[in-house]
């Protein structure tokens, strides 16, 4: 299990290799990379600054990684979340989950992303042509996170 908060970019191939190298029990590797977009609901974004709550952010993410491990048979999980100023095209967040079969790897990666979006203490401030504003929470993200609380191991049709 690795949880890292950092200003620097990450290398997805290297992170996968870190979890899989030398092993022959892993059959499934699911990854998700969140990337900074130039457009948020019609607004042109020049850059964004990610603020986080040091100490709590690591603890919250680690709690969710442990919850994922309790829910699904996983071999390894890596979560990297960047903070600081990012421009469109920059990587923001990475989740890698490994398992023997794909169901667990996919479910864990989705579960962790839903939680990172709604419960991890990060806040995005966008720079738009001259102005700056804090991003508002997306209702769709809350609904996505909520479905893991209701259903059993897999979410029902949430949309």
């Amino acid at each position, binding site marked *: 299990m690795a949880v890292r908060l950092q200003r620097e970019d990450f290398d997805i191939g290297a992170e996968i290799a870190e979890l899989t190298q030398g092993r022959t029990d892993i059959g499934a590797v699911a990854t998700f990379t969140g990337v900074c977009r130039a457009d948020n609901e019609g607004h042109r974004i020049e850059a964004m600054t*990610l*603020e986080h709550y040091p100490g709590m952010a690591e603890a919250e993410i680690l709690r969710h990684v442990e919850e994922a491990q309790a829910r699904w048979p996983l071999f390894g999980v890596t979560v990297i979340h960047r903070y600081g100023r990012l421009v469109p095209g920059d990587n923001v967040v990475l989740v890698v989950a490994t398992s023997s079969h794909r169901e667990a790897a996919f479910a864990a990666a989705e579960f962790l992303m839903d939680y990172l979006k709604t419960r991890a203490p*990060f*806040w995005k*401030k966008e720079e738009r042509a001259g102005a700056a504003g804090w991003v508002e929470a997306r209702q769709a993200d809350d609904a996505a996170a909520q479905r893991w609380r209701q259903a059993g191991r897999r979410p029902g049709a949430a949309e």
Partner: protein
Amino acid sequence: MKLLYFAWVRERVGKPEEEIDPPPNVRTIGELMAWLSRRGEEYAYAFENAKVIRAAIDHAHVKPDTAIAGAREIAFFPPMTGG
């Protein structure tokens, strides 16, 4: 106890953190927000819509009715937008 503010709560209060010593009748997170909002215009502005503000005690999310007794560090912030 130590208070931390993040994102626009921090910007409105005008500082990232401070030490406070609330009176004993301030028992919950909700009561602490109400007490803070009477401390000045910047606090009133920061906490004017207390319903949207989230709180954490010692790095764990808590609700407005959570007791603050024994807390070392309390943080106030808007809904999270990470990921």
